[in-house]
């Protein structure tokens, strides 16, 4: 709490600025309507206002700011992907992350930890060599290292994983980082709000008015808005919105779960991912172990969490870190991941004029928040796909030209 608030309380002579302005009413029309106040929607609003001077914009959010996957993810940031399109795109995002805290004047707790993807099999090592070469070609810091380097970086690890799955090596990515997810949404939201964008929480989009193939307006739980441009950035709700505009896509929804332990003394600096054991772990600044596993095995449009998940995750964690056996689970939760067949996103223009998509972000979209905001702002403002996202267009499926990124997915799916 700001000290001046403690000192002056609610004294009218010393008003305390709010993080976001509250708007009593929706206007009858906007230049751009953004659906979803997650990191992606708010980042697009921010760059539309800051870089293109487009401020007659509203962001509609059915729940609260950052309450979707933005506030549910395990915040791993990296750019060691597999395809040239992916590497260039995520690398630009990592660059944008560097000065975001300054840009927002808000501490995002961006912590550069280094990221190891562990290989327990020869075939996993092979994919890592491939990734390392693609990464280096595009100037991304990435190399294959031996098990002794892993052991040195995380001395508490059992390199043999209980004898079941000995670690043969790892892909090491020095820029790998974590950040405070809520703050990212708040920073972009506040920056957009200060530049005149309206953020309306508790406002659900119920339908989209399309006439002769063009967007004309949006039906919301608080009335109708006319607009010619709609950006859909709703992650796990994407198929519901696509149904409103009658656009087909390969996106399907499975839950992704995560959990944190009680806080313990700092012992783990890097981020560790094991594709074969289907788990990943990092330690937060508060000392909690932040952990996740692979996608839930079947389609579900809900955020329930399961015992199966914690059972499987802790079993594999104990193979890597037997000394954690007394540590307690503090919280578990789930988000709805918008998956694609090639593990690349679906972004850009669509067959409906004025309807733009930022979707297919599945289990990997937090790291891309800044670059998605930038590229989607460009795409919406100029009505043409930003050069960095042309490999991610919805058309690629019709053209059998997929952007195969599965080999760079963090855990098996």
């Amino acid at each position, binding site marked *: 709490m700001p000290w001046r608030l403690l000192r002056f309380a609610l004294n009218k002579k010393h008003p305390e600025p709010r993080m976001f302005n509250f708007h009593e009413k929706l206007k009858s029309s906007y230049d751009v309507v953004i659906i979803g106040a997650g990191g992606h929607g708010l980042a697009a609003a921010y760059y539309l206002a800051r870089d293109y001077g487009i401020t007659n914009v509203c962001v509609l959010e059915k729940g609260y700011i950052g309450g979707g996957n933005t506030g549910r993810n395990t915040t791993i940031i990296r750019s060691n992907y597999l395809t040239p399109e992916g590497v260039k795109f995520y690398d630009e995002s990592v660059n944008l992350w560097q000065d975001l805290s300054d840009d927002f004047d808000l501490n995002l707790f961006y912590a550069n930890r280094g990221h190891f993807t562990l290989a327990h099999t020869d075939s996993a090592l092979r994919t890592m060599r491939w990734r390392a070469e693609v990464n280096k070609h595009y100037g991304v810091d990435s190399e294959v290292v031996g098990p002794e380097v892993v052991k040195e970086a995380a001395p508490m690890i059992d390199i043999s994983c209980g004898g079941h799955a000995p670690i043969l090596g790892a892909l090491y990515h020095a820029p790998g980082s974590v950040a405070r997810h809520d703050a990212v949404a708040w920073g972009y939201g506040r920056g957009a709000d200060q530049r005149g964008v309206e953020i309306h929480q508790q406002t659900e989009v119920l339908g989209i008015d399309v006439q002769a193939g063009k967007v004309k307006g949006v039906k919301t739980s608080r009335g109708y808005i006319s607009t010619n441009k709609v950006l859909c950035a709703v992650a796990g709700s994407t198929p*519901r919105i696509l149904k409103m505009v009658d656009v087909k896509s390969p*996106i399907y929804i499975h839950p992704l779960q995560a959990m944190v332990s009680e806080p313990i003394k700092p012992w783990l600096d890097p981020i560790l991912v094991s594709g074969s054991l289907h788990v990943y772990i990092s330690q937060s600044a508060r000392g909690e172990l932040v952990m996740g596993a692979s996608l839930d095995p079947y389609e579900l*449009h*809900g955020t329930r969490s399961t015992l199966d998940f914690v059972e499987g995750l802790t079993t594999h964690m104990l193979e890597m870190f037997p000394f954690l056996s007394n540590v307690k689970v503090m919280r578990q939760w789930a988000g709805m991941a918008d998956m694609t067949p090639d593990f690349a996103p679906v972004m850009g223009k669509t067959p409906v004029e004025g309807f733009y998509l930022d979707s297919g972000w599945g289990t990997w979209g937090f790291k891309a928040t800044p670059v998605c905001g930038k590229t989607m702002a460009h795409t919406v403002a100029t009505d043409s796909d930003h050069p960095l996202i042309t490999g991610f267009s919805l058309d690629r499926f019709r053209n059998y030209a997929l952007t195969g990124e599965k080999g760079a997915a963090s855990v098996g799916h």
Partner: protein
Amino acid sequence: MKILNCPLNGPRPVSEFFYWGEVRPMPNPATASDEVWADYVFNRNGAPGVKKEWWCHTPSNTWFIAERDTEKDVVVRTYFYEGED
């Protein structure tokens, strides 16, 4: 633990089952255009609803159909496949 009712083995924990997506009619590969085929291969009805899905009880390799509400995760019924209706 979630329980699914296998038409052959009765109620079993969901971890014994494998999910294979919505039942979808396949266009004739010999005559379908590239566009129709791409639509079949890639596109999905991703929105929630009561869907007919393929499931397999893996220990007994029993394939069957489950009608499931994909928003509430409630299985309405399970039965053996009897061809397209």
